[in-house]
């Protein structure tokens, strides 16, 4: 059922109360909760991070909006804490990373299928195959460094196989910039989609930048460095999709609508009753934010919010496995490259990017080396009973050990 955002007013800002205990609730269970519960938590932390990031940028450029931005931002800040603190402490940074890549793959796949603009759809599919490969590389790292199975986190919803190899994802900045949608003609879902994806990717970038140095193994440190660099390219790519001629208030309005849309999607699909209540509460909070910004939009820009927002929100994000679609995109598009703002066949790859890639990979590619000969197996690649009888088949351990 679609949500009528013009008439549903939610909870007003002055009634959005928190206290410290409320912010720190019992986390979800890494073992018992569904993988999509983690995906929702990760996505919503990304959405709130973007809300705060945008709000600060906007405040730096708009004196008149500083106080209203600060008021809404205070609530967003507390929402982000409450949501992100739902991640359990027994979930290691590498396990969380696997969750981040699963989120990137599944949500980008859903968004790409919902996207009516063929160019934007193409860009989402292009990026999705890269995050899909990251999942495989991090799974190899988890298996080979920690002896753990990434599928304990992804719970069979997402394939763990190579995508577009990370080693060829490195591009010159000239080939990461993309064309934006047109604010006057783009469908509302197009605007929401762009914000959802840029939020998710920016969060991944910031997370890897923060946790990368916590790893001791140089293999892990190099892999995080390499994939972090791609995440930066993804943020560049996705932020270009939004029309830069939207006004600051118009962008703020779209941010709030995206927050309502994503919390509402979580509410529709959540299987953990405790988290479902949180999503319900925050749908109401975000409706409150949205309506306060609508008032500013009317007062300051003298414009009707209906110019920018749809009367009802699009169909919620489904939060289900997109295996079939991802496989089809993988089969048909794995060899695509970017040249300028275009997505092109491999034989039209950009010389600038080829040179950049060769330079970055000159001492070897961490993502290739960590996954050399790697095939994911249930219970890790050591679990090769039947292959050699002793669980130490060819390619599983170093040559020295296997001799």
């Amino acid at each position, binding site marked *: 059922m679609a949500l009528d955002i013009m008439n549903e007013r939610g909870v007003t800002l002055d009634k959005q109360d928190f206290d410290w205990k409320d912010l720190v609730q*019992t*986390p979800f269970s*890494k*073992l*018992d*909760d*569904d*993988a999509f519960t983690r995906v929702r938590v990760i996505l919503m932390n990304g959405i709130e991070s973007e809300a705060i990031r945008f709000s600060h940028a906007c405040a730096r450029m708009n004196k008149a909006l500083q106080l209203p931005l600060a008021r809404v931002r205070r609530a967003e800040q507390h929402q982000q804490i409450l949501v992100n603190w739902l991640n*359990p*402490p*027994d979930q290691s940074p590498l396990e969380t990373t696997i969750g981040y890549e699963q989120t990137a793959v599944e949500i980008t796949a859903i968004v790409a299928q919902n996207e009516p603009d063929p160019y934007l759809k193409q860009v989402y599919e292009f990026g999705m195959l890269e995050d899909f490969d990251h999942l495989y590389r991090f799974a190899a790292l988890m298996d*080979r*460094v920690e002896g753990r199975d990434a*599928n*304990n986190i992804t*719970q*069979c*919803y997402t*394939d*763990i*196989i*190579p995508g577009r*190899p990370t*080693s060829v994802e490195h591009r010159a900045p000239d080939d990461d910039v993309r064309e934006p949608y047109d604010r006057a003609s783009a469908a509302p879902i197009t605007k929401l989609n762009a914000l959802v994806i840029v939020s998710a990717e920016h969060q991944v970038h910031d997370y890897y930048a923060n946790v990368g140095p916590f790893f001791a*193994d*140089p*293999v892990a440190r*190099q892999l995080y460095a390499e994939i972090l660099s791609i995440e930066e390219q993804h943020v560049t790519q996705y932020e270009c999709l939004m029309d830069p001629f939207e006004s600051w208030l118009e962008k703020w309005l779209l941010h709030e609508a995206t927050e309502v849309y994503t919390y509402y999607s979580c509410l529709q699909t959540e299987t953990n009753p405790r988290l479902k209540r949180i999503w319900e509460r925050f749908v109401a909070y975000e409706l409150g934010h949205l309506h306060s910004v609508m008032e500013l939009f009317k007062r300051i820009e003298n414009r009707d919010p209906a110019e920018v927002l749809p009367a009802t929100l699009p169909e919620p994000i489904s939060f289900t*496995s997109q*295996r079939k679609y991802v*496989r089809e995109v993988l089969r048909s598009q794995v060899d695509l490259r970017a040249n300028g703002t275009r997505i092109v066949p491999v034989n039209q790859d950009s010389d600038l990017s080829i040179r950049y890639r060769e330079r970055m990979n000159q001492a*070897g590619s*961490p993502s*290739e*080396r*960590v*996954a*050399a*000969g*790697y*095939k*994911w*197996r*249930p*219970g890790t690649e050591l679990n090769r009973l039947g292959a050699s009888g002793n669980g130490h088949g*060819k*390619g*599983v*351990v*170093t*040559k*020295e*050990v*296997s001799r």
Partner: protein
Amino acid sequence: MMKEGVAIGKNRTGIDLSPIDKQQLIEATEATIPSMEGDMSEIADMRSEYLENGERLGSVPPPASVKGIAANALDALKGGNPAVLVDKLGERLAFERTGTRLYEALIAKHQNTESFPGAPTLEDLRHIQTEELEHFEMLRDVIIQLGGDPTTVTPAADVMAVSSLGLVQVLSDPRTTFMQSLEAILTAELVDSDSWAMLIRLTKAMGHPLVAQKFEKALAEEEEHLSRVRSWIQAGTLGLAGPGPVVKESLKEAVKETIAGVAQSVAKSVAKDQVKGVKKKS
């Protein structure tokens, strides 16, 4: 009040819960060729590239006091490397200090968990915690006596702190049970026991017999901790496993062992104190 026990529930981590998806996942991986040939030796090579640098975590500081310089010089004269002793003393001090805090977290769990046959009392846990603190204080005094700085984080102390990160995580997570926390404490006590034995050998070898004597008492106490923690874990685990006749028998044994273990350790400790008393008098 938290209940001990292992519940059967909806754990979703195993692959057999999703028979159709499992098949698809395996088929996909079987049909895929990795983008680079090879094996774990690539990882070994990457590690070697960094190992060749020879960089260390850090160092042991030079002694700050004249007394320390003299003690170090004396150790060096005897042909020893005083840095090793300083390093290991720092490690023990840090571990005992963290141990005191770990027991505080364990006590919080204990206070909020239903008791079981053979379980420790609050006094049992406070007793061990007090001894951990006494060991920390004793080590601090020894380090000062040898002219060292007890606030220094030595490389061995740093490594031990990194190794213990998981113990702190387990003990401080409100979702772990008392028994799960006790397992983490067992890891700490096993390390404690071994490390004190090592330290005694080291101080004797470095020509500090009086220090070694102090450490003997700490080792006896740590052995008592280990024995008691082992018995509590045995009693708790067997108790949780159920009321079957075999388990019941094992449980009785475990409770007996707890009592015997405690009695033995106490007797050992008392005997040592008596020996010390005799020595002092003489």
